[in-house]
């Protein structure tokens, strides 16, 4: 196996994907709406943190429209808010966006249509839409789930971002309010559901250890890039433990 990547086993939103198998379109649309609303609350916290990190409301909203992948956006404003350079902020964001390439590849049988249409649909390739599409049986149902979830999440994520950015403008002292402590909490919440995959705990421990060890030794931006090397610890752990087949 290995050629067809598994769908994310569980969303960070706590939605039980195994409960999504089958079901009619109305049920899929309802689930898509629920996922959208949950994502909207992420959007609110992203908006607040982004303006606190020094981005304007317009830039914050543009990022949610154009980048539209949550973990990467949190990474950018997290690094910028901690005083990192733009390059140091963009690099980990693109590393985190790498998994969307995998999702896009796994969705090739689902995303049909002309080139222009596929190009437009590509912007909606994220955790939530991939998970919903792959929870369906046949390609037409998968495509409906992809589009319904994509539109729902896109609308709510951007509305939440705008709301948070406007509400967060003018917060006097981000540190006194503990906003800097929101970032590690947010990354932990994004990481936790992924830890059940084979090799994931080893990769996580290695990534954190590499980053910490390098902080006093290297310029800003290097530790987070180097943390990606933790992937090899995960691969080694997978080799040792036989891989459980995922459904």
């Amino acid at each position, binding site marked *: 196996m290995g050629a067809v990547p598994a769908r994310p086993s569980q969303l960070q939103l706590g939605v039980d994907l195994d409960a999504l198998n089958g079901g009619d379109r109305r049920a899929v649309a309802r689930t898509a709406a629920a996922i959208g609303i949950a994502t909207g609350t992420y959007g609110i916290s992203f908006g607040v943190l982004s303006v606190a990190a020094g981005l304007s409301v317009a830039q914050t909203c543009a990022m949610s429209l154009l980048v539209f992948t949550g973990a990467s956006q949190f990474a950018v404003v997290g690094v910028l808010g901690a005083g990192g350079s733009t390059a140091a902020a963009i690099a980990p964001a693109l590393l985190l966006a*790498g998994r969307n390439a995998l999702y896009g590849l796994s969705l090739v049988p689902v995303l049909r249509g002309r080139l222009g249409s596929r190009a437009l649909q590509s912007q909606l390739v994220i955790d939530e839409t991939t998970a919903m599409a792959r929870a369906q049986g046949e390609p037409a149902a998968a495509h409906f789930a992809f589009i319904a979830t994509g539109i729902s999440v896109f609308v709510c994520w951007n509305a939440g971002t705008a709301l948070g950015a406007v509400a967060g403008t003018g917060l006097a002292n981000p540190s006194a309010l503990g906003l800097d402590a929101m970032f590690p909490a947010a990354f932990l919440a994004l990481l936790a559901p992924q830890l059940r995959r084979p090799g994931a705990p080893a990769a*996580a421990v290695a990534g954190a250890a590499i980053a910490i060890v390098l902080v006093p030794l290297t310029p800003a931006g290097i530790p987070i890039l180097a943390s990606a090397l933790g992937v090899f610890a995960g691969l080694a752990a997978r080799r040792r433990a036989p891989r459980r087949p995922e459904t």
Partner: protein
Amino acid sequence: MSWAALLLLAAGSYALKAVGPVVVGRRPLPAGAVEVLELLSIPVLAGLVALQTLNSGGELVIDARVPALAVAAVLVWRRAPFLVVVFAAAGTAALLRLL
């Protein structure tokens, strides 16, 4: 952050999303590449957790963010909603800094 940097980021993340549906089509990827992509976000997220908790301008420090992360960890484990997790972390840090 400049607008140029923001657009560069947008172009990069879009390119990653579109590589399958627009460029590759049905050709299968090498299994090794799939494995790396599957795991890649995990060490980077863990690295971000560590750095955003302990790094302060190139030095490792232990401050109010550490207990805030501990509170967040308990809530994540209890499957609390995302917004509850991040605001509880902020509240913990804010409270400790008031004391």
